[in-house]
């Protein structure tokens, strides 16, 4: 008993844990002073260099694997960690493990991914909703799956890229017909789409299509009436893509969305995604959070594999259908 007591008495104490004047009074003042000074970039650099464990404001070849390096390079503008000003290193003790560490990321002035490029938002993080509208078939499985009723489906005039597919799947889509709709590609806009970043742009994705109504088809040329100007014009039929005014479009009320991801799971066509982007989803009023098709759009090139497989699936289906039709016609004629 007495031995145990003396052991307790002699138990070594962390030097910062002693309840003396220095630790109770002066040391807290010192810590807050240094913390306050460090938030000014100039003091941050000085103290960061003097006291750092070499974490922030340094390069980290040992952390930067190939993927991180690629990612860091892709947004070099704000991923250059040598340019980071804030959150220099803090020493810490076992007693106050959090007190001297940089706990605050000065978002939006800095981002964790920018400060530490080897970190990233995990791919399974449910962020902003993204849809590859080109492969959407308007089955509305996502709408019925949504517990919060935040998905709304409408139709709009749009080109179905599957109809105009090139290469091995060409000719498997719908065809131009009189009274139907057609669209012409605007190459400048289409090229600029690769550079277009929905997150930083804060505008709708520009439309690369010019839509028209088909008035007459005669061989290689077609007479169309442009929807934007109302003018009639004769154009090469090869330049025209089939457009459909029954193609589905959606509006998503992100103010109601709880990011459960059930819509993504319900989608049978790999067109519905929860992206891992977490910012750019704010607004001054509720209507700002009604994201229409163009603000939820994911370019097909981002998920080219999914689009390709969907394309192949539909082309094969169409091919089977035509083969059956041809077989039936042969049978009837026989």
């Amino acid at each position: 008993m007495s031995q145990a007591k003396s052991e307790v008495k002699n138990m070594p104490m962390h030097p910062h844990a002693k309840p003396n004047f220095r630790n109770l009074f002066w040391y807290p003042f010192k810590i807050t002073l240094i913390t306050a000074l460090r938030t000014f970039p100039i003091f941050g650099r000085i103290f960061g260099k003097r006291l750092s464990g070499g974490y922030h404001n340094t390069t980290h070849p040992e952390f930067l694997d190939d993927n991180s390096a690629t990612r860091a390079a892709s947004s070099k503008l704000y991923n250059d960690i040598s340019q980071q000003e804030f959150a220099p290193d803090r020493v810490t003790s076992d007693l106050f493990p959090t007190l001297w560490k940089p706990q605050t990321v000065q978002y939006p002035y800095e981002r964790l991914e920018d400060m530490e490029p080897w970190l990233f938002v995990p791919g399974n993080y449910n962020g902003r909703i993204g849809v590859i509208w080109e492969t959407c078939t308007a089955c509305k499985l996502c709408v019925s799956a949504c517990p919060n009723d935040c998905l709304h489906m409408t139709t709009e005039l749009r080109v179905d890229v599957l109809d105009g597919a090139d290469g091995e799947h060409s000719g498997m889509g719908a065809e131009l017909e009189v009274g139907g709709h057609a669209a012409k590609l605007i190459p400048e806009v289409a090229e600029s789409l690769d550079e277009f970043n929905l997150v930083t742009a804060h505008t709708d994705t520009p439309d690369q299509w010019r839509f028209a109504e088909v008035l007459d088809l005669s061989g290689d040329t077609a007479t169309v009436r442009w929807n934007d100007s109302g003018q009639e014009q004769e154009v090469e039929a090869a330049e025209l893509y089939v457009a459909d005014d029954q193609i589905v479009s959606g509006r998503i009320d992100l103010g109601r969305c709880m990011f459960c991801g059930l819509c993504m799971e319900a989608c049978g066509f790999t067109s519905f995604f929860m992206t891992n982007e977490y910012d750019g989803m704010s607004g001054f009023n509720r209507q700002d959070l009604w994201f229409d098709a163009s603000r939820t759009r994911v370019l097909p090139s981002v998920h080219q594999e999914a689009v390709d497989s969907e394309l192949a699936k539909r082309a094969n289906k169409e091919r089977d259908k035509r083969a059956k039709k041809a077989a039936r016609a042969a049978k009837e004629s026989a």
Partner: protein
Amino acid sequence: MDDAYDLRGLIFSLVEKVIPPILEGTFLEESTGQITFGLATFAVVNIVFLMLFFSQFAILWIERKAVARMNDRRGATTALRSLWVGENGVTAGEWWNMLPFGLGKPVGAVNKWLNKKFGNRDEKYPTVDRVNNRSWMGYSIFPGFFQNVADGMKFLLKEHMVPQRADKLIFEVSPFLIVSSTLLILGLIPLSSGIYATNPELSILYAIAIFGIAPIGVFFAGWSSNNKYTLIGGIRSAAQLTAYEIPLLLTLLSVAVLSGTFNIVESVHFQHSAGSWNLFLMPLGAGLFLITMIAEVERVPFDMPEAEAELVEGWWTEYGGMRFGMLFMAEYIRTYAACFLFTHFFLGGWHLPFQGLIGSIPIIGDLYLLIPGAIVVLIKAWLVFLLVFVWARFSLARIRTDQILEFGWRILLPLAVFQLILSAIYRLYLFDPSAMSDSTFGGTSWDAFGILFLIPAITTAIWLGIFFLMLNDEDKSGNTERMFHVYTDKAAGTYVPGQE
């Protein structure tokens, strides 16, 4: 030494020139003197009050910003700016269209111009652009200063609610008691020898007497709200304020003893004409004053009466809307008043640092003395607020009630008595009244053995020595080993869990 800028004298002479000719020949001619005095005093009081009141915004801002820095943040950056700087020039709707009197168009035009000029256009912070309602300018120009205006507007729009079973009359009266007694203190605080509202002979006693009214209101508020949290807060407040009032009074008494006056203005003049700020003659008294003042204004670490973690908001839990705002404001005015009192009693008021030495240099000295005393006082008060009240608030942890009381009664009170004795000794034996002088250089009353300012220098050195002794007061022999992991008694780095 008098401040060069005599606002009070200017206004009085103006009114004395303007008013008598107007009253001449009327039935008021006989009371010309009283009317002149009344009008001039009214003008001065208003000017001084407005100066004190609006300069108070600075300390609110200082606290927010300094605290944010100490917490590794930036603090308020965008208050009210969000009205005119939105993302890519898009603000919170065209709100200016709702303005009356045809103001919408011009205000909207100004707003659009501001957006064009100062909106989010900097590519250095793309993330800032990407998140609405922020601006990279937010932390580089005057950030968050008007947050308090926004808070005040919010408070004004809130409903006034009285708890159903409260003592309604007392509940309504006590905020007025607290706020009005707090505002009265401002009337006694001189901004300089030429800018003050009123200067009674015994202004130190008067200020402290008024300071002592608010605790009654606090206790009333806590009691009448009919809420256990407010009651506990009120009782804690009563116990604490009583305990700390006595060392505070004794400290002020020792200031009065040292400077031989109960008048604030005279005690400031004394510090110049005797040759040393009181801070250097009684560092112990300065420390006692600050500690007791922090306790009197109920700020951390002495904020047991409104301990948020356990008492919601303490004695003002039940007050909402603008009454909450007024109580908060009263607390900050009391703090601000404490800063001013410290400035006047210990930091030489409107006298510049080394005013005597630098002021005696021919041209530089004249320029140095041109700095207005009111500015000096304000800067000193803000610095006291920043370096004492704010820094202490966000460094120290809240102290237990019994520890507060024990500290007050058993440590501060004897120390205050000790300081009083010290002051008497200083005044009686170390002070040379014949060397006092109101010249630019000031007096040399605190010299000894022919060495300039020897007594304040030695006093300060002794107390600094005590401070550093206390800093290093630990048993170094008990700690010869390397640092230990807190969760074990093994030396750091040697402990591997699951391997003993």
